[in-house]
């Protein structure tokens, strides 16, 4: 049965991808990308990778769609028509694809327990993580403790992306005269948004601090929190949102998140262990692991939240500037 569901989902994924290539209306393409991400999330659920599915649904389908729509507001929704011939790129793509397909022939069978990936470090994680770290959700143990370097890299990538976008677009200026943006006409939307936003923030906090026990963590929490503020911005206007959460504050928060993460690592270093080793953070190694994981999840959540929101602010600020001119 899972194979059948997987097959259906993969064919829908393929159809969506073809739709993305064929359709020229970029607004529809962005919507299709959202559908693509949700389908990928379903495939991950089907493979029992709920953590990845949750991340894909919140980041891929949620925030990316909003950011791409923000880009469309700046660039326009029609795709440029190409006049040059595209035979060479097609050839390159076909050859690369064929090589990749040929490469998969050498791969071990899918889902076989004897595959190298299941024999390398996975047995050690499964056997020792309950004693070493003691979290019910093993994925968090791997993500935040065994593979903390990888997660640090990901957090820094998010931070760097925010810096890149901000240096290109710039944050919206606070002293500018407030414009009547937002959806003043939509009474229903405003009321429902007021109902939903606090609940969304509450859910983000739940996701943030429930990472030890469920398939959740800082990345998703940051994105969900950012989504709540983005909803507020869309409904009540950018000037109001920047009054609540100032762009300079966000810039500080994004850096603070990375600082907390690295600081946790350096604290371990100063207490006589390796970088990002949480054992000496408390008298009991397991308690130390708990403290370390909560701290770095907090760092990840802060950075992702602030980075996503400042990228959105940058797009929204640009779009409003374009609208005025």
């Amino acid at each position, binding site marked *: 049965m899972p194979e059948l569901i997987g097959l259906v989902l993969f064919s829908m994924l393929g159809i969506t991808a073809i739709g993305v290539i064929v359709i020229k209306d970029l607004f529809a393409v962005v919507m299709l990308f959202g559908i693509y991400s949700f389908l990928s999330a379903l495939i991950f659920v089907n493979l029992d990778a709920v953590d990845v599915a949750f991340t894909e649904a919140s980041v891929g389908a949620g925030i990316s769609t909003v950011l791409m729509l923000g880009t469309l507001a700046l660039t326009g929704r029609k795709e440029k028509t190409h006049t040059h011939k595209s035979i060479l790129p097609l050839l390159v793509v076909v050859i690369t694809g064929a090589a990749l397909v040929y490469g998969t022939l050498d791969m071990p069978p899918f889902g076989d327990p004897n595959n190298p990936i299941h024999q390398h470090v996975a047995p050690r994680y499964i056997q020792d993580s309950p004693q070493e770290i003691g979290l019910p959700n093993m994925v968090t143990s791997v993500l935040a403790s065994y593979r903390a370097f990888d997660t640090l890299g990901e957090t820094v990538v998010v931070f760097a992306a925010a810096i890149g976008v901000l240096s290109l677009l710039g944050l919206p200026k606070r002293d500018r005269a407030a414009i009547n943006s937002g959806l003043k*006409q*939509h009474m*229903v*939307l405003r009321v*429902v948004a007021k*109902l*939903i936003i606090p*609940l969304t923030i509450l859910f983000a906090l739940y996701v943030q601090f429930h990472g030890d026990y469920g398939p959740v963590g800082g990345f998703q929490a940051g994105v969900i929190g950012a989504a709540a503020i983005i909803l507020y911005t869309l409904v009540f206007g950018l000037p109001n949102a920047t009054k609540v959460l100032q762009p300079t504050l966000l810039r500080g928060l994004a850096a603070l998140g990375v600082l907390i993460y690295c600081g946790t690592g350096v604290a371990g270093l100063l207490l006589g262990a390796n970088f990002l080793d949480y054992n000496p953070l408390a008298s009991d190694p397991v308690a130390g692991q708990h403290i370390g994981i909560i701290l770095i999840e907090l760092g990840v959540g802060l950075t992702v939240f602030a980075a996503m929101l400042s990228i959105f602010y940058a797009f929204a600020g640009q779009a409003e500037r374009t609208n005025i001119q």
Partner: protein
Amino acid sequence: MILETISAICLILGIFFSLTGAIGLFKFPDFFTRVHAASVTDTLAAILIILGLILRTEFDLVAAKLLLILVFLLLTSPTASHALAKSARHGGLLALAETQASTKPATTKKEND
């Protein structure tokens, strides 16, 4: 056993309404009727499917979470449909009847088309 039967009926009805919503989305003639069809999927089908799923749980935390999802969907989906329709209206899109009424005097000859 009774619960399972009720749950199955709910799920099948929910699937039926999703399907009619999808068919309506493709078959209906203009934007507003299509939004109407889609919103049927969003509300009625969602209620029925989640109700069917709740009846299959042990009435524990999972049921509570499903109920919360249902409340969330019932808040957001009609709002989304409303916002869509209102924006279309605001943008000057006319309903099918209005379009026909406004084009009739001008193009009486084309009515046979």
